[in-house]
């Protein structure tokens, strides 16, 4: 899922300071899991905006606001309300904001679509409702087969691919002593698996061009363009 946190309400308010009639659109996917964009979050945001003197003309909750057809499915029936709003406030990730903008464009509308959340990475849930952690940044050449299923690109603060830096101490990372050094985790895991030899294979520098943005996925043909 894409992790999200709330922007300060003042910042959201400032982004729509020129508009009175607003629509609030959440996301029932990742943002719901992060407790930032589900039904409750949409209601809370609508109330806060009303309290700040805004006229909330629409509330909507696509299943996944980053899927264009799901956002269409949620907004097509309330297209008129969308058109009545002067601006939309999105409780979803950066993708959700941009897909909603695209949907308004599909309707022939030129209106500001504003982000109420900050997106903080591809997250995986460790403790439901409590804790998620970044585990992958989609580097385009997955190394997990050689690193015991632990990602050095994401979990090592320096994305090192040839073992730990000099700052690894007592199994912890130099950047945050509360966090395990990814390379100690990898080493222990490979030792347990009897796969230590796999480490010796990797000397090459990573090909970051595979992460050159924006990447486009040709879904039909299964390739990145």
């Amino acid at each position, binding site marked *: 899922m894409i992790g999200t946190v709330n922007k300060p309400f003042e910042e959201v308010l400032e982004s729509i300071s020129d508009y009175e009639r607003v629509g609030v659109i959440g996301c029932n996917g990742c943002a719901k899991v992060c407790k930032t964009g589900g039904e409750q979050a949409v209601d809370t945001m609508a109330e806060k905006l009303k309290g700040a003197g805004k006229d909330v003309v629409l509330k909507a909750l696509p299943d996944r606001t980053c899927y264009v057809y799901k956002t269409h499915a949620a907004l097509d029936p309330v297209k008129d309300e969308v058109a009545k709003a002067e601006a939309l406030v999105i409780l979803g990730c950066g993708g959700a904001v941009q897909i909603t903008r695209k949907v308004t464009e599909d309707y022939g509308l030129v209106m500001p679509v504003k982000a109420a959340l900050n997106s903080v990475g591809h997250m995986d849930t460790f403790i439901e409702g409590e804790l998620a952690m970044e585990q992958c940044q989609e580097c385009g050449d997955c190394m997990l087969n050689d690193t015991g299923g632990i990602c050095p690109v994401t979990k090592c*603060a*320096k*994305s*090192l*691919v*040839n*073992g*730990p*830096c*000099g*700052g*690894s*101490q*007592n*199994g912890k990372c*130099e*950047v*945050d002593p509360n966090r395990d050094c990814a*390379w*100690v985790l990898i*080493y*222990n895991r490979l030792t347990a698996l009897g796969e230590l030899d796999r*480490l*010796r294979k990797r*000397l*090459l*520098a*990573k090909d*970051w061009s595979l992460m050159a943005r924006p990447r486009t996925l040709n879904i039909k043909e299964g390739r990145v363009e």
Partner: protein
Amino acid sequence: MKLTELFDKGEFVVSSEVGPVKGCVRDVGGEEPVCLKEARELKGKIHALNVTDNQSAVMRLGSLAASIKLKAEGHEPIFQMTCRDRNRIALQSDLLNACSLGIDNVLCLTGDHIALGDHKQAKAVFDIDSVQLLHIAKNMNEGKDMMGNELSQPTNLALGAVVNPNADPLDLQIFKMESKIAAGAQFFQTQAIYDPAVFEKFVKRVEGFGVPIQVGFVMLKSPAMAKFMNNNVSGISVPESLIEEMASVPKGGRKEKSVEITVRLLKEMAPMVQGIHFMPLGWSNLVPSVIEQLDLKN
């Protein structure tokens, strides 16, 4: 002169370290910049001088500029390069710059993370790591850039690397050391170490590698400084007994005590390896006396 030539001759190689200042070092009158002053205190007493690269991710005068300045003043600089602030294009270009400007030695490091420094909002680079930097530098010595393109004139640099004998798990550190050697490292400087028994264990594991090692040493300044290093400097561990020993003398006697401890520990550790690397952190003026007392010629 390349450090590798000294090691090849069987010389016991002593180096020290200076950190470039936060500011320029152009001679405009006034006080001499600290890094140049410290270097002067070591002149003629050591073989080479490491010049740190924005150490601890704190922005300062660059290692290359400081190295060249020191070379012009008759020192033998070891140009430190980290992978934190430059991508592979800039790093390779700086290797060409260094060689073109007369630098003979380079120490390849990953670099401290930006989170430890004074520009925490910066974007960290870490395009490549220390192992790959060594590999690239070796290829450039052989006339090719990282992509295999021919260099009109190759670099000619002695390639150094670092290793931490305190590391736990040590196996992982040794694996990394082997990777560095395979990549092109020609000599090693260790992280500061205060426990000869730990050091001996490490040396036993790596002596078959056939690459010269300099034992690293940060002179203790006070009990508080030692505790600070234990808590904040990654990879360093000062035993409690040494902290107590430092605490046993009044403030005025600390320099003497520090020299005494340094000499005592290095007398044990230096014979195990091929050199010493001092990190005096401002106490460069004490290094000559330590060297004298070590009587390294024997």
